[in-house]
């Protein structure tokens, strides 16, 4: 090994050793140990360890509609103050059109309205007032809804007892959930699919005419019963108390009514509830959850203690889940599951096993083939290939990348393609030998001439892999990562490590001629 530059030897030793050392944690594969060294292991993707991936969309359109409802209500009040009758209201996606019977006070109405609402534009055209929610307002509604939703989703998942969930925002209006090792994704999906907006309203039992006509008078709402959609109630539109005033909710059991949820209000809630019940003794109040009445009991006496129970025909699981939902709070807008991928632990384990077998057999096949074709040089290429794998695993572990099933495919593919750089070099060396160039000179020329080809050939594949990383989603990113790392590592091992091994072998074997 005389004449072999010291820095190159050092580089080879450092890279190869750290490749081997840092792949140890991933290979021995222990649970979290708290030891920084052993925790540098490859993370397994959900498709390998089992678990659920959920993508949720926050349905913010509902909020715009609510906002438009508010606007139309307050406009109606203002118009009434100015003795103007409204003849027609039309609400569309993000605007509302109101036609008034006479236009005398239309300017004052507009002025008064704008005192209460900013962030909307008001256009008057003859006897119609058009109110448009502007983009800034829309964005701020959307933003706060998503932030709030994230918070609530986090609480609900925590309450459900899921370990190590990953909850993050994805894009404009989506939330991404990764729940490793989850056994029952259906229950989680149900927890997330419920808005859980709980409100208490006074019931109007006297207005039978409106009920029959199925037309709610101003300030009132018609709501159907949860268990029998044919039963309707007329309730006040404005809730007396809402779920936001709850501080605790628990599943409980009532000897007469069966499964129930007991709850407690905070001070404000208790005051409001006390006031509402004391002035309405003998009337009914409705407990409304997500737009339907769960129960509507008669108020026998004022409830001032700030706690109570909700009964319905719950199963015990329903009662538990409702309690979880009430504790975590209501979602500002409904969530919709737009993508789900759940893998059971059995399939994950099978995939790992199959991947290992494919990798080992592929490795053996390639190694045997290389030795058959290139003899000792093939053996050297195989050493490079093994080191290459160590480096890939070490890099995956230290950068904290996630290994997925396509990622394993990427590694197996790398095993096949990584020897390419070696082959390019060996073929060049062979040509040099055929020209009767001396051994050391032949090896040197071979490496020099192969270098630019190796770079050109690998960079094109690397470009494809990188774009796959940018545009690919989920598991496919895992493929792009292992393929890219494999290509980079194979260039290093071929150009530097193979070179080192060949010089090492030549200097100890003292060969005068090689039949490559």
């Amino acid at each position: 090994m005389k004449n072999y530059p010291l820095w190159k030897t050092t580089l080879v030793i450092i890279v190869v050793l750290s490749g081997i050392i840092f792949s140890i944690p991933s290979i021995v594969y222990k649970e979290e140990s708290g030891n920084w060294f052993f925790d540098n292991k490859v993370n397994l993707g959900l498709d390998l360890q089992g678990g659920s991936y959920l993508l949720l969309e926050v349905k913010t359109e509902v909020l715009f509609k609510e906002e438009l409802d508010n606007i139309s209500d307050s406009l109606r009040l203002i118009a009434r103050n100015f003795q103007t009758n409204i003849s027609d209201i039309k609400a569309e996606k993000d605007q509302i059109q109101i036609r008034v019977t006479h236009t005398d006070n239309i300017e004052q109405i507009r002025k008064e309205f704008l005192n209460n609402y900013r962030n909307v534009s008001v256009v008057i055209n003859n006897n119609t007032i058009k109110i448009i929610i502007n983009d800034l307002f829309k964005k701020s509604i959307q933003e706060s809804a998503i932030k709030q939703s994230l918070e609530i989703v986090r609480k609900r998942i925590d309450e459900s007892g899921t370990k190590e969930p990953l909850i993050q925002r994805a894009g404009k209006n989506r939330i991404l959930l990764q729940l490793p090792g989850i056994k029952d994704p259906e229950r989680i999906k149900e927890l997330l699919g419920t808005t859980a907006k709980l409100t208490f309203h006074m019931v109007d039992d006297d207005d039978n005419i409106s009920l029959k006509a199925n037309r709610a008078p101003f300030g009132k709402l018609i709501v159907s019963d949860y268990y029998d959609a044919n039963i309707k109630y007329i309730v006040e539109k404005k809730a007396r108390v809402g779920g936001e005033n709850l501080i605790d909710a628990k599943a409980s059991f009532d000897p007469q009514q069966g499964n129930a949820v007991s709850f407690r209000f905070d001070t404000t809630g208790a005051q409001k509830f006390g006031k509402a019940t004391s002035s309405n003794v003998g009337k009914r109040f409705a407990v409304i959850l997500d737009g339907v009445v769960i129960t509507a009991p008669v108020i026998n006496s004022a409830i001032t203690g700030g706690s109570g129970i909700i009964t319905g025909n719950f199963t015990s699981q329903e009662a538990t889940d409702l309690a979880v939902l009430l504790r975590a709070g209501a979602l500002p807008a409904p969530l919709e599951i737009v993508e789900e991928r759940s893998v059971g632990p059995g399939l994950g384990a099978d995939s790992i096993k199959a991947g290992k077998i494919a990798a080992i057999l592929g490795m053996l096949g390639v190694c045997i083939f290389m030795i058959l074709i290139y003899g000792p040089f093939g053996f050297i290429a195989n050493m490079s290939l093994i080191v290459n794998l160590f480096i890939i695993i070490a890099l995956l572990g230290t950068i904290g990348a996630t290994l997925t099933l396509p990622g394993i495919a990427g590694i197996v593919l790398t095993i096949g393609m990584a020897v390419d750089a070696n082959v390019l070099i060996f073929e060049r060396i062979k040509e040099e030998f055929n020209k009767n160039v001396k051994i050391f000179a032949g090896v040197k020329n071979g490496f020099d001439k192969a270098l630019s080809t190796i770079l050109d050939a690998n960079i094109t594949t690397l470009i494809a892999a990188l774009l796959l990383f940018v545009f690919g989603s989920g598991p496919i990113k895992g493929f792009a990562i292992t393929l890219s790392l494999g290509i980079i590592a194979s260039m290093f091992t071929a150009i530097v490590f193979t070179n080192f091994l060949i010089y090492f072998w030549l200097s100890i074997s003292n060969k005068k001629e090689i039949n490559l």
Partner: protein
Amino acid sequence: MFGINRIIRFESNYSFMDYRKLFFVVSLIFILISIFLLSFRGLNLGIDFKGGTLIEVNTINSDIGELRSILSPKFNDVTLQEFGDSNTIIIRLQNESNNESIQTINKVKLLISDKVSEFRRSEFVGPTISSELLWKGLQAIIFALIAILIYIWLRFEWQFGFGAVVALAHDVIFTLGVLSLFSIDFSLSSIAAVLTIAGYSINDSVVIFDRIRENLRKYKKLELPDLFNISINNTLSRTVMTSLTTLIALICLYFFGGEVIKPFAFAMIIGVLIGTYSSIFIAVPTLLLFKFRPQEEDNKLI
């Protein structure tokens, strides 16, 4: 070593260019067939791109017919398929709205729970997501092709870029045609396969182009077809070797890597085979469309 190297290690001297017209015609026919298949039969889009629900189960001694007879009456568009062995069954349901899907998976699970030993996976892709995934996949392919083209154009003369892209398009269309012919499930990992095939195809062409460029400088007097022949022969054992090692790995992946990865491995095997062929018989002959030695003609004029 062992004499085997004598078989693969040919000191080859084939006249590839003599047969270029034949191979052009053969390729053209295959490409036309592929395009025909793709436009009339189409790709067998999986739920990634079409949307829908997929559930994989392991059954306890019940066969696919039994499950079908339970599920078919309850759902409009349900298909069942054995997956690898007769105990593993994939259930596919089409195109419900997002909200329905939650209930659908649950409903299926309830209906067949006593026939099933393990629910291996369930996937649902909503209509908005599937079209986004398709669009993103197309973007990845388009941008990768542009980026590769730019790289080739920077490193070689543009004529080489043209040859490489013709070969690449040939490989991708052919592979897609084969996927269509065998109704292979086209999923996200198929996009990965297509891009990797693109990378591999270019990689193979680039190695030969490199040698052509070198030989253009070395043999100034040689006719282009002869020079191309020499260049292909120079690099032939590398071309064959790399394809073989890659195929060894891919075949192992196909047979032992598990059912989920099979379509990917299949597409890659086709891609590597066709990529190897095209770099020799398509990419290089395409270069004959161009004159590479303007300086030579200048000399003649003088």
